[in-house]
């Protein structure tokens, strides 16, 4: 098989299980492809090829003996470098790291291991996952596999770049203000930011725990369904992990979508660049083609929500970093340091007001915005794919405004905690971009069904040819 790296994780797992390809062959191809991706995009933090190849041989032996039955048995993956793994220290994309190796795996790492997936590398992220563009003044900036002069989006930059390039079919990321959706959109792939609380955060580096959400980036929506089915559910290690039943996301991929209503808030969307507004219309046309009905909707005042989410995030992140900001400020890159400092100036009363208002705003969104729709469509980026140089603002005076523009359509959704599926826009030879579909709480299965129907019309693409 010459197109291993173009397969979905689900299809590759089936091929390995059926003996059409070995895990060793798949992992060798993936390591080769990931190394090439790194040359172009700077996506790798740590390559663990020898360990992965050993694990692949073990998997092949187990399959031959009839003993490897996990949903992702033998599939090589790689993840954002912010998850605990027993005996290792994650980089967090930073100079400041944990003092000692993790004693156990993060819950999401355990879940993927339990399904038989291999891990061949850890991947680039913005320093401390605190940045929406892929700039990292400690590791070096990530570059977009479609055009290396452009941003990858962040903070899950390496995962998106590697997925888009065809080095991995999917990987883990996190989202506090857009960190799954922005890189997915910039790199022309899909992502799921689940409902807040759907996936355990245990063992994941905290940024702003009231907002932090662990999720996945993939080329194929079906892989998001497979992956979320493995990750979702209660966890004694994370009291915020919801005890709600986890649907069979894969079984519901082909749920009918005809007649579902997709809402467009024209007031909010009008704040995007005209080209981005046109992209939203192109996606809406595809969604209408597969049977959805377009309808108007209105979110609560978007700027108010954007301010409220900052009132939550800034002090939450500042508190998590308080000790290092006092004792090791020189070890931060300029941008993250400048952003973390701001949180120290938010009064506790304002922080708590934003937290107390959160339920009211979610209720208002569900009762009014979603009253006559099933999902809402929003841009992800406010602008066409930016150049790395254009957003290389470091910790300078324009950082809040520049970053605020990048997360304009993503950060408020974290305040609402709602699930969000990112889909790439029809590219037509141009640079990638994406939209987000926002669902009701815990309605990820519905989002996947819509995404699956969309990808029948707009199939996944690789950023680089397989012979590249």
């Amino acid at each position, binding site marked *: 098989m010459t197109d291993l790296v173009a397969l979905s994780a689900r299809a590759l797992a089936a091929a390995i299980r059926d003996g059409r390809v070995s895990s060793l062959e798949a992992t060798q191809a993936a390591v080769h492809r990931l190394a090439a991706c790194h040359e172009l995009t700077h996506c790798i933090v740590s390559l663990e090829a020898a360990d992965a190849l050993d694990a692949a041989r073990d998997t092949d032996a187990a399959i031959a003996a009839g003993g490897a039955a996990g949903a992702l048995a033998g599939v090589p993956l790689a993840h954002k470098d912010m998850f605990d793994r027993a005996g290792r220290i994650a980089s967090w994309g930073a100079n400041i790291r944990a*003092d000692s190796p993790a004693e156990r795996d993060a819950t999401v790492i355990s879940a993927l291991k339990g399904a038989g997936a291999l891990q061949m590398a850890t991947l680039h992220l913005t320093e401390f996952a605190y940045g929406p563009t892929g700039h990292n003044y400690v590791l070096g900036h990530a570059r977009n596999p479609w055009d290396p002069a452009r941003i990858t989006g962040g903070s899950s930059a390496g995962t998106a770049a590697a997925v888009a390039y065809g080095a991995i079919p999917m990987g883990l990321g996190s989202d506090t203000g857009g960190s799954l959706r922005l890189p997915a959109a910039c790199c022309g792939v899909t992502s799921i930011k689940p409902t807040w609380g759907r996936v355990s955060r245990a063992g994941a580096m905290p940024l702003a725990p009231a907002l932090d959400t662990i999720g996945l980036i993939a080329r194929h929506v079906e892989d998001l369904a497979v992956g979320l089915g493995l990750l979702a559910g209660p966890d004694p290690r994370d009291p915020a992990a919801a005890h709600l039943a986890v649907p069979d996301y894969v079984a519901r991929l082909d749920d009918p979508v005809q007649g579902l209503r997709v809402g467009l808030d024209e007031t909010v969307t009008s704040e995007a660049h005209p080209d981005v507004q046109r992209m939203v219309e192109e996606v809406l046309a595809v969604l209408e083609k597969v049977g959805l009905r377009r309808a108007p909707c209105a979110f609560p005042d978007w700027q108010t929500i954007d301010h409220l989410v900052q009132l939550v995030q800034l002090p939450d992140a500042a508190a998590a970093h308080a000790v290092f900001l006092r004792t090791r400020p020189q070890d931060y890159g300029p941008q993250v340091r400048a952003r973390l400092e701001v949180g120290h100036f938010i009064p506790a009363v304002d922080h708590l007001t934003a937290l107390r208002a959160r339920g009211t705003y979610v209720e208002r969104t569900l009762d009014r915005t979603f009253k006559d729709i099933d999902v809402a469509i929003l841009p992800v980026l406010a602008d066409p794919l930016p150049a790395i140089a254009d957003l290389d603002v470091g910790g300078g005076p324009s950082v809040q405004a520049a970053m605020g523009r990048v997360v304009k359509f993503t950060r408020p959704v974290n305040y609402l905690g709602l699930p969000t599926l990112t889909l790439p826009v029809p590219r037509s030879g141009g640079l990638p971009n994406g939209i987000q579909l926002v669902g*009701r*709480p815990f309605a990820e299965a*519905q989002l996947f069904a819509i995404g699956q129907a969309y990808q029948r019309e707009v199939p996944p693409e690789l950023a680089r040819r397989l012979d590249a």
Partner: protein
Amino acid sequence: MADPSSIKPAEAGAEAAAYLDMPAERRALAKAHAAMLAETAGRVALELPLGADVDDFRRVLAAGARRETNAGTKPGATP
């Protein structure tokens, strides 16, 4: 972890976050940003009921999940 003795306590009457080694311009920008957000917080606080609680968020999400379970992906379903 950091040595606690290396962390300076705030002095009475000291400026907010005086322990941060920030140039004056960045400190001023941070204060201005916080002040802008404070205006929104003040406005939102006026409309909140006294009983509004930080746990409302999780309760509302869970209630929304129950509505989703009932509605499923049935076309045009309204909770």
